[in-house]
């Protein structure tokens, strides 16, 4: 299932599952990620799964590339019971002070913003991975009519809770951060809770996300 294994620097193994982004490839990545994690292998210090790659970092004072590579190659991948992939509902307000890139989206995609939202909310999205900043979910796949490049110049500050679009993906800024995605709205929910150290993330890889449109009043009520 892994197409190629190589070293990334002297303290990480780079597992390449292919070039395309699909649920099948991503579920293989997640399978390897979970199997390695559950086995508590000696010296492993971090696992970074993404759409189609898995980076396994290790402590070079305890092990090395050839040992970790062998562990991964010999790993028996236990199929997990069909996970209860949960559906997470996320309320989103797309009114004026939140839809930062409505105009750019209308112009670039040649579509009315209302129509864009209708298409966006009419779908469930799959969580491929989390990261960049704590708990940020990378969700897909967007309808082809909504696919747009990153901003030419990224924002220095994207507000917490912003919902962004880029290429076939959408995401949620779990806290204020620099970023270049096209912002259509904002959720009043805390998607990442740093004080909950056992389950800090509302959305985990493999989950499905359903966005629900709310108005400003509903937004303010939840925020309270």
């Amino acid at each position, binding site marked *: 299932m892994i197409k190629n294994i190589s070293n990334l620097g002297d303290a990480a193994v780079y597992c390449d599952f292919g070039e395309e982004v699909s649920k099948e490839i991503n579920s293989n990545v997640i399978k390897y990620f979970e199997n390695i994690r559950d086995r508590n292998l000696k010296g492993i210090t971090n696992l970074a799964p993404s759409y189609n790659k898995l980076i396994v970092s290790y402590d070079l004072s305890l092990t090395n590339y050839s040992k970790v590579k062998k562990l991964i190659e010999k790993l028996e991948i236990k199929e997990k019971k069909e996970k209860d992939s949960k559906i997470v509902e996320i309320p989103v307000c797309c009114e004026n002070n939140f839809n930062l890139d409505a105009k750019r989206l209308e112009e670039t995609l040649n579509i009315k913003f209302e129509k864009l939202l209708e298409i966006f909310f009419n779908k469930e999205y799959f969580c491929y991975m989390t*990261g960049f900043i704590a708990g940020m979910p990378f969700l897909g796949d967007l309808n082809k009519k909504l696919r747009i490049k990153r901003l030419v110049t990224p924002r220095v500050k994207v507000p917490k809770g912003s919902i962004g679009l880029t290429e076939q993906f959408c995401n949620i800024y779990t806290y204020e951060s620099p970023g270049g995605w096209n912002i259509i709205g904002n959720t009043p929910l805390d998607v990442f809770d740093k004080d909950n150290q056992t389950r800090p993330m509302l959305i985990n890889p493999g989950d499905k996300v359903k966005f629900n449109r709310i108005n400003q009043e509903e937004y303010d009520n939840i925020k309270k």
Partner: protein
Amino acid sequence: MTISKNNFFKIERGGINTTFQDGGRKNLSHIGIPISGAMDIRNYILSNALLKKNLNSAVIEFAYQGPLLKYYGDKIFVVITGNVKFQIIKNNNEIIEGEPYKVFLVQNHDQIDIQSTNKTVYGYLSISETFILNESWGSISTNTKAKIGSNNGEKLNNDQQIYIDHTNKNVSLTKLNFINSKIENIRVIKATNFDYFSKKAKDIFFNRGFKVTKLTDRMGMRLEGNNLENIVSSNIKSEGLIKGVVQVPSDGNPIIMLADHGTIGGYPKIANVISADFDKVAQLTPGSLIKFKEVSLKEAERLFQLYLLETKNIISQIL
């Protein structure tokens, strides 16, 4: 831990970027939390070793201009490591010139004035007693961008107090004659997207220097000077990042990922700094020149063993 508020530092001046750090946190990359921890690991370890503490104990890390701390409580011992200029201002206004890698006695109302790091970035302050700090995921390391870790994820600010658990440890006034080695080349291994770059760009990468810019912090170090031409694509599908990765965005200027890096990125990876050179990279100041030298994986592994051995030897020389 008893939280007595009898022993504490009052922060008279926070300094530029003063945070609590330890060895960092593991196994959280997949939820977007990087390793953090001390930037110059050897100097961090030495600060604890000089006080015969657990090498993974919490310390204060400072950058450029450090903090001015006023101490209240029963006597403690402190050590500062790095190329650091500092003074101990005694209660009777006597001024003792600081010497890094040497244990100093600090008494009620004494002040520690950490003036600057000399031609380097980071320095460390460890104490004989224990800072009272909150852990997040097994580490007190403060990540100010994610607002995670001790001190509510914030750097030290003027007028706040840091409490200390005081158990009257007896410490000998140890000392170490240690000079940080001069930084020459930064050694790297070619990374997964090396062949995205033109032959000319590869030549430039290894044969010409880059300038360290001011856009450098605990997250990453931006370089400039020679734009690296990408002949394949300046975006890859977003994937994991690790400390030491050299990414090249579309403007052709490399960025080195450091301890508080984002955990996912979409720029091609040209190279990766070897583990033995992490401490050196962290200490490069804005404006200085960085030159990359290619080594093999085998060589990098050998150099890291050598680095560990050197650290051990330095610790064994503590008097």
